[in-house]
C-alpha cells in the first residue's frame, strides 16, 4: 500500500514534464552516464547553467534527432563516433561553430565542415593474449590478419560503430575493392564475429580468440577491476589504418534556442580540466597536449605518430560501408 502511495506521488509530480527554464541546456548524450556525469556536474558548478541530459545509444539518439527535426528540444548532441556526427551533420541539423573553437587542435581532431568538434579520442588497437601469442606473431598491419597463421584466431565486431568507422577509413584510404578483398579474406580466414569491444576482450580472456580488433580504452577498464586480466594490447606499425583514431564529437543543434550556453559547454569540454578528466579517468586520448598523460595509455605524441592521417569528414559514407559489409554477408 505504502509503495503505491509513493509511486502515485512520484507519478503525479512527473506526469507532465517540468517546464525547462530558458537558461537550461538539454544534452543528448550517446556517451554513458558513468563516464560523462562528473564532467557535466563540474560544468554546472562552474557556470550555474543547469544541464538536462538524455542518455541513450549514440545511433538511436541520432535517429531520434532526425525524427524530431526542427522540433527537437535538444541544444547539444554528444556522439560516440565520427560516423554518427557526420550523419546528423549531413541531415542539416547542426549549427555552425565559430572558428576559434578549432584553434590548437591536432589535425586528426578537426572536422572540415566546421559544425562539430572532437571532444576526446580513441585509438583502434589489437588486443591479444600474451599467453598464446608470441612476439613474432604481432601483426605489422591489419592487412596481415588474412594470413593463414591467423586462421580462426581473430575476433571482430562488424555491427559495432567504431569498427564501421574504421572500415569507412579503410575505404577512403585504399578504395572499395581492396577493402572488400580484406573483408572477404578475413571472413574466409574464420574471423569470429562479436557484438562489440567488451565481448571481444572477454573472448580473448576466455581463449575463444587470440586477437581482437578493439578500441584502446576497454582493456584498461578490465585491468582496473582485475590487474591479472590475461589480455594485452598494442598498435600495428606506424601509420597503419588499423590504428585509426576515432573521436567522440560534440555539436550544437540548429534548432537550439540557447546556442550561447551550448557553445560555452563545448568550450568547457575542450578546456584542460575536462581533457585531464577524459584521459585520467576514462582512458581516452585528450585533444590537447596541455594535460598530464595517463601512464596506462600509449604516449600522446606516439599516438599522433602511429595514427593514419584521415580527415574525419571523409568518414561519412556509412551507407557505402554497410553495403560492403552486407555484400560480404557480415550484416
Amino acid at each position, binding site marked *: 500500500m505504502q509503495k503505491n502511495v509513493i509511486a502515485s506521488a512520484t*507519478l503525479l509530480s512527473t506526469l507532465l514534464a517540468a517546464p525547462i527554464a530558458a537558461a537550461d541546456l538539454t544534452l543528448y548524450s550517446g556517451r554513458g*552516464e558513468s563516464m560523462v556525469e562528473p564532467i557535466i556536474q563540474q560544468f554546472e558548478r562552474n557556470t550555474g547553467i543547469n544541464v538536462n541530459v538524455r542518455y541513450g545509444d549514440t545511433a*538511436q539518439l541520432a535517429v531520434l534527432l532526425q525524427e524530431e527535426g526542427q522540433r527537437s*528540444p535538444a541544444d547539444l548532441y554528444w556522439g560516440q563516433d565520427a560516423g554518427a556526427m557526420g550523419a546528423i551533420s549531413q541531415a542539416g541539423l547542426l549549427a555552425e561553430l565559430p572558428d576559434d573553437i578549432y584553434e590548437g587542435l591536432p589535425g586528426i581532431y578537426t572536422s572540415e565542415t566546421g559544425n562539430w568538434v572532437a571532444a576526446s579520442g580513441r585509438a583502434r588497437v589489437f588486443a591479444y593474449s600474451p599467453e598464446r601469442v608470441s612476439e613474432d606473431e604481432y601483426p605489422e598491419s591489419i592487412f596481415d590478419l588474412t594470413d593463414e597463421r591467423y586462421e580462426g584466431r581473430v575476433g571482430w565486431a562488424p555491427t559495432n560503430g567504431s569498427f564501421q568507422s574504421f572500415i569507412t577509413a579503410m575505404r577512403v584510404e585504399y578504395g572499395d575493392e581492396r577493402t572488400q578483398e580484406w573483408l572477404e579474406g578475413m571472413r574466409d580466414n574464420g574471423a569470429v564475429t562479436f557484438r562489440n569491444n567488451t565481448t571481444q576482450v572477454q573472448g580473448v580472456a576466455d581463449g575463444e580468440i587470440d586477437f581482437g580488433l578493439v578500441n584502446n580504452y576497454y582493456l584498461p577498464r578490465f585491468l582496473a577491476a582485475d590487474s591479472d586480466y590475461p589480455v594485452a594490447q598494442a598498435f600495428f606499425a606506424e601509420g597503419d589504418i588499423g590504428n585509426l583514431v576515432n573521436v567522440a564529437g560534440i555539436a550544437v543543434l540548429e534548432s537550439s534556442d540557447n546556442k550561447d550556453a551550448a557553445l560555452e559547454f563545448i568550450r568547457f569540454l575542450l578546456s584542460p580540466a575536462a581533457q585531464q578528466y577524459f584521459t585520467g579517468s576514462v582512458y581516452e586520448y585528450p585533444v590537447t597536449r596541455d594535460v598530464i598523460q595517463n601512464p596506462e595509455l600509449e604516449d600522446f605524441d606516439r599516438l599522433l605518430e602511429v595514427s593514419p592521417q584521415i580527415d574525419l569528414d571523409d568518414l561519412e559514407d556509412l551507407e557505402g560501408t554497410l553495403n560492403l559489409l552486407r555484400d560480404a554477408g557480415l550484416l
Partner: protein
Amino acid sequence: MSNSAELASPAARRTPPKGRTRRVPLHILLPSLVAAAAMLVPLFYLGLRAFEADPQTLANLVLRRRNLDLLLNTLSLALGVVAMTTLMALPLAWLVVRTNIRFKRLLTILGVIPLAVPGYVMAYALIGLGGNYGVLAQLTGVQLPRIEGYFGAMLALSLYTFPYLFLNLRATLAGLDGNLEESARSLGYGNREVFLKIILPHLAPSLMAGWLVITLYVLGDFGAVALMRYEAFSYAIYTQYSGAFDRIYAAWLSIMLLAVAASFVMLDSLVVKRKLARVGTGVARPVKPMRLGRLRWLAYPYLVLIFGASVGLPTLILGYWLVLAPPDLSFFARVPGTFLRSAGAALPAALLSAAFALPIAYLTVRYRSTAATLIERSAYIGYAIPPLTLALAMVFFSLRTAPFLYQTLTLLIVTWAMASLALALGPIRSALLQTRPNMEEASHSLGHGPLSTFLWVIFPRLRRGILAGVALVFVLCMKELPITFLLAPTGYTTLAVTVFTRTSEGMLAEAAPFAAAIVVFSSLSVGFLLTKEGKR
C-alpha cells in the same frame, strides 16, 4: 462462443436475445476501439516511412537471400524457445497448483523472478559462465565451452520467458473445476486420459496465449540474441538503425517482421476455442492436491535444475560482479531513487494495460464477431513491433499532434501500455473463458447494473487473471529499454537504462547493483501482487 441453453425467465424478455446480434455496451466497445486506434499509429508511421524508400535500393535490401536466412534462423529460434519453455513451465505449474508440494508461494515467486532479469544480464550470465576465464573456471577450475550461438540464444530467451507461460498455465489450472475431473474418473478415465481429454483442452487457450507471447518476444528481442551472436531478424533491424542511422529500410524490415508476427497471430486464432466455462449447477470445487509420494525424487531435482539456471545463474553473476569490484556506497544510495522512477512509470503502465485488456477480452469472449476478433488481434501490433520502431512512431505522432505530451511521463506510460497490451490480454482472457456468462445474466436479472455485476460477480473471478496481467506488464516495463531511451522525460533515468549504459561501457561491476535492484524489486512487487490473489 457462448450458446448455452437459455432458461426462459421473466428477465429473458427484458434482456435482448443472446448471440451475435447482441449490442455491445459502450463501456466495452469504446475502450476497445481506442486501443485498436492507438495501434494504427505505428502502422501509419511505418507506411509513411516505407514509401520514402528509393525502389532500387529497396529491392536490393528486401529481396536478399539473406533475409530468408534471417527468417529461418528466427523461426527455428522461436520453435526452440517454445519447446524449451513448455518443458519448463508446464510441470512447474502442475507441481505448484495440483500437488501437495511444500513452499508453494516461494515456488510461485521463484517462477516469476526470471522474468525480471534483463535479457542482456541473462546473456552475460551464460556467456560469463563458460570459457577458460569464465566464472566457473575462476571459482572451480572446471572449464565449460562458451555458451553461444543458437543454443545460447535459445537458452537465454527460454530462461527469462518461461514465466509468461507459467503464469498463464497456473491461473488456468487454479481455476479449473475439480468436479469435471471427478466426473471423468467416475466414468473410468485413468490419470492419463483425464490429462489428455479434460485438462489439456482446458489448458489450450493459455498454452496458445503463452506460446504466442513468447514467440512474438523472440521475434523482437535483440539483447540476448545479439550478445549470443545469433543472427535473427531483429538483429538486422537494429543494425539498420544503429549502423546506418536509417529509418526507411528499418521500416521495411519492421514491416517484414510484422508480417511474420501477423501469421503467428492468425495461426493462434485458428485454434478452435471450445466452450470452457463450467456448465451445470453446483459450486466449482478446487481440486484436491495430489500427493507427490515417490514423484518427489523427480520433482525436487527438476525444480533445482530450473531455478538454478533461471534464478541462480543471474544471481551468481551479479554477486560475482559485486565482489569483483565492490561499488562505493554512493551507488547504493542512488538505487532507491532510480527504482522509484522505474516503478513510478511501470506501475501505471501495467494498470493502464490491464484496464484496456479487460474490455477487449470481454468483447472477444462475450460478444464474438469478426470485428471483435480484429480488434483483439490488433492489440498484438504494439507487442510485435520492434520497440525502437514503436518509440519512433510515437515521437513522430506526439510532436505533430500533441507536442506538450512529448517527452513526458504520460507518453512513456501510454507507449509502454501499447507495447504490453497483448501481455495483459492473455491471462485476463483465459480467466474470462472460465467464468460462465449466465452468472452475469443471473446478476442482471436480479436487477444489478453492469457496474455492480462486474464488481461483485465478475471481478472476484477474474482477479487472478488481472493480477497476473498486471504483474507481467509491470516486470516487462521495469526492464524495458528502447522505448525508455527515446520517450522518457530527459533526465528520467530508470534502472534498466543505468544497467545498460554501464554494461555497454564494459563497467560490469558498476552495473551490478542496479541490475540486482531490477531483479529484487520486481520480484518483491510480483510477490506482493500474488499474495493479493487469494483474498476475497
